[in-house]
């Protein structure tokens, strides 16, 4: 693939490149989290059916991805262990996984070997991706760059990577769940704990990561400004039954039955 050097980024990696403070902090935090995610990676890679988010809502119920994905050029921003890319590659997409944390990409590489499924993995921040303009039909992020990178940097990058007519699909925490989230790692209740106006950058006392969450109007404005037309906002409701998720700070099922704990935005590059 053609390498475009942006902001001094180097295809060999991000070492030595001056990354923004929040990107450096998130890379360090994800390096610490990587072993835990490595344990879960094989299970995520082995899934035959693609499901969204912590409640495992099947893609076949939501129909978010274009159909078919076969033959599409797909970039996954903040791919982590790259299980989303793996599923898309298995459907015949030409996937490229982008992540800023080497430890996560090591797991992705190990999974590629274990499952005999190869696709390019690029070590880069989603805020500055060393890939060509207009070279992808689909840019996707599930709990990836969508919450760990600054949207005012990564969404313009995603839009730059898309061909006209290409789709941007990303999953983030539900807006209400962010407003109700507790500072400690315990599930939210129904109380609003922080203001909506000014939503953007979030830091939590329990770890050193930096998250980004926007309100609805800000997402729509940002997507429009990046030349993307909003096609859909799928606010996910937890199914009535199923296995609990393993994330102590996220809403429990009773909460996510009433209010969206996750939302998927879908937009088309004009």
């Amino acid at each position: 693939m053609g390498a475009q050097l942006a902001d001094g980024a180097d295809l060999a990696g991000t070492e030595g490149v001056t990354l923004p403070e929040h990107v450096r902090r998130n890379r360090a935090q994800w390096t610490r989290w990587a072993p835990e995610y490595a344990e879960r990676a094989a299970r995520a890679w082995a899934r035959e059916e693609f499901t969204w988010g912590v409640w495992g809502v099947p893609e076949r119920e939501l129909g978010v991805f274009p159909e078919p994905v076969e033959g599409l050029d797909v970039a996954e921003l903040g791919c982590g262990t790259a299980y989303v890319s793996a599923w898309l590659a298995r459907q015949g997409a030409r996937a490229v996984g982008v992540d800023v944390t080497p430890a996560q990409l090591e797991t992705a590489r190990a999974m590629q070997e274990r499952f005999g499924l190869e696709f390019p993995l690029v070590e880069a921040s989603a805020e500055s991706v060393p890939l060509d303009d207009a070279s992808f039909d689909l840019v996707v992020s599930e709990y990836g760059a969508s919450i760990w990178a600054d949207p005012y940097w990564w969404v313009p990058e995603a839009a730059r990577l898309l061909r006209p007519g290409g789709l941007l699909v990303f999953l983030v925490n539900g807006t209400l769940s962010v407003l109700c989230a507790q500072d400690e790692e315990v599930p939210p209740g129904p109380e609003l704990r922080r203001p909506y106006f000014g939503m953007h950058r979030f830091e939590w006392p329990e770890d050193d990561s930096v998250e980004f969450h926007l309100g609805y109007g800000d997402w729509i404005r940002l997507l429009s400004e990046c030349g993307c037309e909003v096609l859909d906002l799928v606010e996910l409701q937890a199914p009535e039954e199923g296995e609990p998720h393993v994330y102590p700070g996220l809403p429990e099922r009773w909460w996510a039955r009433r209010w969206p704990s996750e939302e998927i935005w879908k937009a088309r590059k004009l």
Partner: protein
Amino acid sequence: MSDGLSEHAARNRAVWDRAADSYQAEHGEHIGRAEPRWGMWQLPEDELQILGDVAGKDVLELGCGAAQWSILLAGRGARVVALDNSARQLEHARAAMAAAGLDFPLVHASAESVPLPDASFDVVFADHGANRFSDPYRWVPEASRLLRAGGLLAFSGGTALETLCWSPAEDRLTTTLQRDYFGLHRTEEEDGTVVFELPCGEWIRVFRSAGLVVEELREIQPPEGAVSTYRTEEETAWARSWPMEQIWRARKA
């Protein structure tokens, strides 16, 4: 047009016919400004720039009340048609129009079923108007039908978040989610009206399926010191933290 009114449109018509006089007495001064202003805190259109230049455009107001907006837009060169579901509100509109020395069509109808031809407007708008009292699954397709290609739908209204945080038991706005977001649609108010609000994703789906492209969602944060005849000081303080009012803009494809 009373035939074919939906059950909630008939109820809302009856309530508004009874309430129009006291409504105009209570809020008429607040919303009767010299220049067009939006919503509960009367923020100037010239600052928000929601409609833009209306001169020479065919403009339809859905739920015009006493036609404060339509009169000002007619003064700015728009060819205005003003619709309301309440005959008593339209009597106020007729008097105000005459006082302003203007004459434009007033239409007595529900926004869910508008007796006007397809593709006859460049702008369809409402300021806390018919959008609150009509079912979005009916009135948005109607608005879209009335718009020419490239035409603008813009409307201000309440928010899902405020609807969720209202406690009927305590009869006040709280900072706790009281009711479900999923399935949010219809609410019966104590004054007998039936009002409508949708989750954000549901609005987007309604626009898209009506052939409208989503342009903007402007969530209104009232400026410090903003006053309203519609809201208590405590409620305005709430609205400084969370959106209580929002304006959608969508474009007919």
